[in-house]
């Protein structure tokens, strides 16, 4: 409905402006004819004056319709009231000179306007980048502050109440500090990985890497962080060499695994499934837990309403982690998505094969 209205309005405007422009050519022509009858049979002067007045007006007028009305008035005024039969040649020369000057200024002006526009566009994109950067920074500092205040608080309690605490309580405090520190290290590693994707470079530098090696190293790191987590891996027999920045992809796998272990709310082993497709390799990280809440599914990777989503479950969320996953996979020309399956959640990302690895099978 709205679209239809808009369309009609646009069509009306179009017809209107065509009519006006027809009118605006017709009226000065008539005026010029009138002038030639009154001032003598020299058409050169008439055209010069006509063009001149039009340009002067187009220069100062901002509105199309307004400009036309003014030029119309001006032509009429020139044609009817001014006596220019003093020296026909002089008028022609002066007229040409002034026209040249004006055309020149006009061109200058349009050029400066063009540069102004590009400048403004640049500012806009910069502002945009600045905005995402600010968003990320805000989210990060929020994420950093929480575990840090946790560490500080635990240390303070330990130091101030040392004689009163039982061994078990002390242990608990230290375990808390340890967990928060682990989380912080994890965070910092994520941030470091993002600095590998520089803005000036369109893509990252990739090397052919064996998929099994990448996964095995991610699992080793995972085991260091969460010694009791269980992961099942299903990987095709074929030797898969995929171009990637291995440190970044490892980070993605680690983030997804950590998400699955920490947030699924289940101790079922997490599955990593690698499938080879003709043009790409698909990695699936599947957990068997609570799944992703419906309202979060749409904004998993954008991190936009991060704090809102984030507030309820303190700092344990990996909002930043997913944003970073998305950035990394996009830089690899791959895709990533998160969804629920029957018994939990799964994250699927793909990486394109190199040209010579593609096969039609």
């Amino acid at each position: 409905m709205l679209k239809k209205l808009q369309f009609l309005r646009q069509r009306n405007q179009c017809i209107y402006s065509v009519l006006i422009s027809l009118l605006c050519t017709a009226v000065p022509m008539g005026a010029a004819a009138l002038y030639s009858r009154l001032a003598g049979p020299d058409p050169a002067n008439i055209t010069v004056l006509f063009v001149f007045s039009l340009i002067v007006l187009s220069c100062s007028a901002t509105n199309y319709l307004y400009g036309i009305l003014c030029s119309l008035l001006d032509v009429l005024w020139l044609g009817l009231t001014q006596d220019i039969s003093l020296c026909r040649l002089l008028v022609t020369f002066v007229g040409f000179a002034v026209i040249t000057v004006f055309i020149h200024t006009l061109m200058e002006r349009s050029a400066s306007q063009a540069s102004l526009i590009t400048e403004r566009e640049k500012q806009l994109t910069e502002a945009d980048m600045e905005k995402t950067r600010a968003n990320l920074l805000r989210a990060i500092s929020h994420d950093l502050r929480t575990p840090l205040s946790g560490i500080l608080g635990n240390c303070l309690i330990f130091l101030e109440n040392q004689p009163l605490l039982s061994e078990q309580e002390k242990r608990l405090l230290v375990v808390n500090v340890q967990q928060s520190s682990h989380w912080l290290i994890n965070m910092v590693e994520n941030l470091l990985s993002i600095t590998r994707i520089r803005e000036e470079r369109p893509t990252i530098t990739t090397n052919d890497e064996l998929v099994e090696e990448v996964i095995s190293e991610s699992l080793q790191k995972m085991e260091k962080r969460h010694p009791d987590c269980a992961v099942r891996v299903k990987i095709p027999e074929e030797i898969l060499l995929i171009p990637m920045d291995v440190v970044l992809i490892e980070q993605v796998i680690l983030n997804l695994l950590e998400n699955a272990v920490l947030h699924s709310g289940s101790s079922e082993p997490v599955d990593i499934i690698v499938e080879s497709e003709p043009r790409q390799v698909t990695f699936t990280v599947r957990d068997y837990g609570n799944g992703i809440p419906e309202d979060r599914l749409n904004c998993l990777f954008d991190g936009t309403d991060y704090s809102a989503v984030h507030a309820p479950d303190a700092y344990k969320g990996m909002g930043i982690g997913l944003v970073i996953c998305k950035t990394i996979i996009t830089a690899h020309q791959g895709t990533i998505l998160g969804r629920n399956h029957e018994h939990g959640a799964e994250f699927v990302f793909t990486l394109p094969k190199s040209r010579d690895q593609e096969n039609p099978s």
Partner: protein
Amino acid sequence: MNARLSILVIEDDKAICSFITAALNGNGYRTVAAFTGREGLSLAASLCPDVVLLDLGLPDVDGHEVLQKLRCWSRIPIIVISARTEEQEKVRTLDMGADDYITKPFGTAELMARIRTSLRHSSGNFPETVYKTLNLEIHFDKRTVRLNGELVHLTQIEYQLLTLLAKNSGRVLTYNFIMKNIWGPYTDNNNQILRVNMANIRRKIEQNPAQPQYVFTEVGIGYRMRENDDFTPP
């Protein structure tokens, strides 16, 4: 070996230094700490420690320089402590003569394992004839590889690769080092052939290539084989 083994820690961060010293002392090593590169170099010359732990980010001299100067006159095992996660950096230090590296943050167990491995390889008293761990057994003199008691058939290159790793078990070997040892000094820098051979070995000895038990990948750097079981720490 009743005398306590001495370890020199060259590390400028006091907190990390005290953590390492405490951990080492708790494990029966004698430790000396140096906070600058120059101090470390002179202490290394006067004390002749059994192992050096070297941090790369030192205030006065670059860690690489310390490594180079130490290597001029000494074969002491040097373990580089690095906060840098850049793999190129690690490869460089390893190719410059460091025995191993450990990335911050690390745990005590990891540190102790690295030190034990370096000590074992530096002593070099008893050349091993058998590599045995979990279900894998390699007899170097008989040239056999057995998994669960059954012979594994490997190609010539695969066998050479596996034994090279097994003889250096517990240590990381860079791609460069392995390439030069197996394919000779004039091979090109493309290590694809090595990767494919490793993938084939893994398919022969590992149950699941993505969850290896024997040969571990240090992506971007090289390979590390599981420590030999026969080895008892000094």
